[in-house]
């Protein structure tokens, strides 16, 4: 499966929760598949989806799912020790690991070579790290939400993209709509 197929499959699972979605194609895909006020789309700033999600989870009680990529986590590896040492049980980091920089033309990442992000997360002190194959993600993600225990999920999948439009919504509108959903 490729990322857009995974997002299509998990959309019903995540739609009632707060979602911080990674820059580029992941946000564009989620926006097209199931736009929700509970989605925060990143339009810039590669690498910070996990940090924004953690800050949000620490600041309030609702479940937060950060959708990140292997390339983006590699860009902000310092996030993993911060997550490990500041446990928020309403926080799930979902790393969609397709071994490539999808939004920029599928150049290979080191995660697609020797580096195992699940091992990195564990070495950083993350306590619930689950590695899962794309087709098995749904139930694993649902269980992580139900358990209310901070979880890092590394979902292995194929690289590949679909054609779709950019998000034209104004960033302040995205943010305002999202904050209203947080408070609702």
């Amino acid at each position, binding site marked *: 499966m490729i990322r857009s197929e995974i997002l299509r499959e998990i959309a019903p699972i995540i739609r009632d929760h707060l979602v911080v979605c990674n820059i580029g194609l992941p946000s564009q895909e989620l926006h097209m598949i199931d736009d929700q006020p509970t989605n925060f789309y990143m339009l*810039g700033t590669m690498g910070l989806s996990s*940090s*924004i999600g953690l800050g949000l989870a*620490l*600041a309030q009680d609702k479940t937060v799912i950060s959708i990140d990529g292997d390339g983006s986590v590699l860009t902000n590896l310092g996030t993993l020790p911060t997550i490990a040492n500041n446990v928020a049980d309403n926080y799930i980091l979902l790393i969609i690991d397709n071994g490539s920089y999808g939004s920029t033309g599928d150049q290979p990442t080191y995660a697609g070579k020797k580096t195992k992000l699940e091992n990195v997360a564990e070495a950083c002190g993350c306590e619930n790290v689950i590695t899962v194959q794309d087709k098995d993600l749904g139930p694993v993600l649902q269980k992580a939400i139900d358990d209310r225990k901070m979880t890092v999920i590394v979902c292995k999948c194929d690289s590949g993209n679909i054609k779709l439009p950019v998000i034209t919504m104004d960033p302040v509108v*995205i*943010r305002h709509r999202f904050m209203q959903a947080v408070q609702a």
Partner: protein
Amino acid sequence: MNIDKRIVDDLVANDISFVTTVPCKQLAGVIDEVEARDGIFHIPSNKEDEGMGLCAGAFMGGKRPMIIMQNTAIGVTINTLATLTQYYRMPLPMLISYRGELREPVACQVEMAVHTKALLAQMNIPTYHFHWQKDVEEFDNILKYTFMCNKPVAILTDANFWGGYGDQ
């Protein structure tokens, strides 16, 4: 006057309850005070752009955030300031140790100091420079201003403000 306590009192008075820090010798006392206060959640960052991400999330979660860092961080965070904090119009007070200014003992620190105000000006970031201890009297107003206008705001604090480095 205990300057560290005074600064953190102003944070608490302005309802700032989520503070991320990257360490600096000049800021050590403030960071200790932030850590010690009950009303403040202190979360150290490994890098300043990561810290700004945490602050963005905390703000959207209903908390007033702040970042404490060195001026060298301006070199690290330009993209984050432009495409996250400013683009989504979020408030972020940045208490910055202004290394490389008067009474600085480490020559290399001057190399980023000479760019600091120019970069902040280029980014249209409101910038205040604390040089004398009494300048701290402006801090409360700066915090109120930051959350009024929803912008990142820089408070540069140099070695003279912190009382220098003793005999160094």
